């Protein structure tokens, strides 16, 4: 030790020294041996290492999860907004099928005849039906009534008999004349 500088050895220095020594004189370090300290520190460092690994794994897991969420979010978006050649081809095929299944005019007339037959059959069936046994006084809902409308025949002449009559009468008038 070198000699002390007298500038710092005054009353204030004395009280600082006394205070520091008095306030810490009863403080004793824990009674660990060096081997105990070594084992404690080794345990502490291994715990810290485990914590680092534990901390790293969820971080990686979270990163992977974020990547998955990102990919899941992007894929349907791209399909829905940008039609691929496959989807346009499917749409073309569906429209072609719709066009081919549209009935022509002759088929529609046959359908009308079928409906007429079906109605006649229903009328026959309704006449032969027994009355429904029910306590309900409300009238039962009636079946749909198909109103038959006279349609001109397919091969009927475009002119009527009445249109000819004036011509005959005219001829007769001429004969009488």
């Amino acid at each position, binding site marked *: 030790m*070198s000699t002390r500088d007298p500038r710092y050895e005054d009353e204030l220095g004395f009280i600082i020294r006394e205070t520091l020594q008095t306030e810490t004189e009863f*403080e004793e370090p824990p009674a660990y041996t060096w081997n105990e300290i070594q084992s404690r520190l080794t345990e502490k460092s291994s715990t810290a290492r485990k914590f680092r690994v534990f901390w790293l794994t969820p971080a990686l897991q979270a990163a992977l999860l974020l990547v998955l969420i990102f990919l899941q979010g992007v894929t349907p978006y791209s399909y829905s907004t940008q039609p691929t050649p496959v989807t346009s081809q499917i749409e073309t095929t569906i429209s072609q099928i719709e066009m081919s299944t549209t009935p022509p005019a002759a088929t529609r007339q046959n359908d009308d005849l079928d409906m007429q037959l079906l109605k006649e059959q229903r009328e026959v069936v309704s006449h032969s039906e027994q009355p429904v046994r029910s306590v309900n006084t409300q009238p039962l809902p009636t079946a749909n009534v198909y109103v038959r409308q006279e349609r001109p025949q397919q091969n009927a002449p475009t002119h009527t008999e009445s249109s000819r009559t004036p011509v005959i009468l005219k001829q007769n008038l001429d004969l009488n004349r």
Partner: protein
Amino acid sequence: MPEGKEAELVARAKDGDMVAFEALYEMHKGSLFRTVIAITSNGQAAEEILQEAFLRAFKRIDEIREGAPLAPWLYRVAINLAYDWTRRRQRWHTALDNLMNRLQIMTPPSPEQTIEQRELYELVYEAIERLDFKHRTTLVLFYMHAFSLEEVAEIMECPVGTVKSRLHYARKKLRRELLADQRLPRGIAYEYT
């Protein structure tokens, strides 16, 4: 402590002698612990810093020069650790923690001490605690362990002039704090400052 004996123990520890290292630990642990507790005002922190400082000493014992005293090197490690601890603590420091630490540090008064002296020590200790880390550490090393200015400079890794400057400002600030403290009797305040 006999320097020759310490140098011999350091040399043996460098050769891997665990008994020699344990002897060095027993030789320095008390004073180092009290120094750290005076700087940090926290018993638990002082315990951890003490253990960490000796673990570093154990790992880096080869760096100690032949015949050089172990204490400055050991104190430098401990003070660096205490500095790190103080910086971390500043972020979480609360008034309640301060009070609890103060209660832990307080020791029962001995019958020989008068109440006045006891109060004076407590007030001075509180004022030292309020100094910033560098000024507080300089005071502790210089007054508590009677390290020379050169040794303090070596421990704190700064020039001797910086140590003198820190001592000057630490004492000035301490004097101002004690004079401003209304709890200190006027007579005692002027007597010591």
